[in-house]
């Protein structure tokens, strides 16, 4: 099958180009997109991309696959390409390209950092551990599973237009993960940092993030919860 891959080396190339590579894929079984990319790399060893765990846990191989962001390692070829059609691989949109499918994620991590993604609790630590009821623990389901692959944030137009000001779905999901944690005592400080017109409120609720999340998480719902908490705090 034909695989079209985005090739760009900012140090030597004036413009990015799409390069087609013919890859022999076995007809009797379905491959993951990452397998096809590995086969393409056997033909042209200069193709650059990130990958590590190859099972959707590390979040390294987020890329744009036939127009939709996803993890190459857990995206079956059959789910993105009709038989006889081309597989088109591009880097995640909205971030600077380092080389081919490798993007510079600095600004994504910077936004993640802004939400203070760690437990804040000024009370003295108890002897064993900070206990949590099963009900309180259940509130973190659908939040803690995020692997920071950036598929959601780089599919969000609000992030494309204001990557330095809008925190983006991944960061906001983590912001709510700590707002919802019964052991965290910094909710009001966290909310105060989110109240400006950009950090949360650039979200227009178009739900691209929900559509692409490889872990099936729902950042739009988390953003809605943050908005509700902001309202509750102000009245």
């Amino acid at each position, binding site marked *: 099958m034909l695989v079209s891959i985005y090739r760009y080396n900012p140090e030597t190339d004036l413009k990015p180009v799409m390069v087609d590579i013919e890859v022999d894929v076995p007809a009797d079984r379905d491959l993951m997109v990452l397998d096809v990319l590995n086969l393409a790399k056997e033909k042209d060893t200069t193709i650059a991309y990130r990958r590590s765990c190859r099972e959707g846990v590390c979040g390294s191989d987020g890329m744009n696959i036939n127009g939709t962001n996803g993890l190459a390692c857990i995206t079956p070829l059959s789910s993105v390409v009709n038989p006889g059609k081309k597989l088109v691989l591009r880097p995640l949109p909205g971030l600077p390209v380092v080389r081919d499918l490798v993007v510079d994620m600095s600004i994504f991590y910077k936004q993640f950092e802004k939400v203070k993604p760690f437990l804040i609790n000024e009370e003295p630590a108890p002897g064993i551990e900070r206990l949590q009821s099963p009900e309180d623990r259940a509130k973190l389901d659908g939040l803690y599973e995020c692997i920071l692959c950036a598929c959601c944030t780089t599919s969000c137009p609000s992030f494309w*237009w*204001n990557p330095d*000001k809008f925190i983006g779905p991944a960061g906001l999901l983590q912001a709510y993960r700590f707002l919802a944690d019964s052991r965290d005592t910094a909710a009001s400080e966290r909310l105060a940092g989110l109240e*400006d017109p*950009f950090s949360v409120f650039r979200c227009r609720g178009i739900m691209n993030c929900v559509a692409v999340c490889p872990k099936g998480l729902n950042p739009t719902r988390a953003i809605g919860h943050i908005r509700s908490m902001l309202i509750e705090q102000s009245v």
Partner: protein
Amino acid sequence: MVTSVTNFSRSGLSDWIAQRVSAVVLLAYSLFIFISLLTGPELSYAAWSELFSHTAVRLFSLLAIFALCVHAWIGMWTIATDYLTASHLGASATAIRFGFLIGCALLVVIYLLWGIQIFWGS
């Protein structure tokens, strides 16, 4: 965090609530006008000015004009800060955005004053 920006209330939360409340007011007013046109007498100058002679209707209209101005300003500010930025327009973006927003602000103020004059002028 970003706070020193020329949005409506300097708070994302207040802007967001203002935009939603104003949207509800505009919907209610649109429905009111629509239903009045459907159920009222045949449209004539007399019928139209009779409808707007009630103080309640004139207050509602004034409220709708306020809502429209708030809604339009927040919306245009959001559009301008999404699309009239350095990543789209380069170094002149700030000047272009300010020009655009001053134009929007002028239109909003003119519309507001003109509306007040129509409903409450002699």
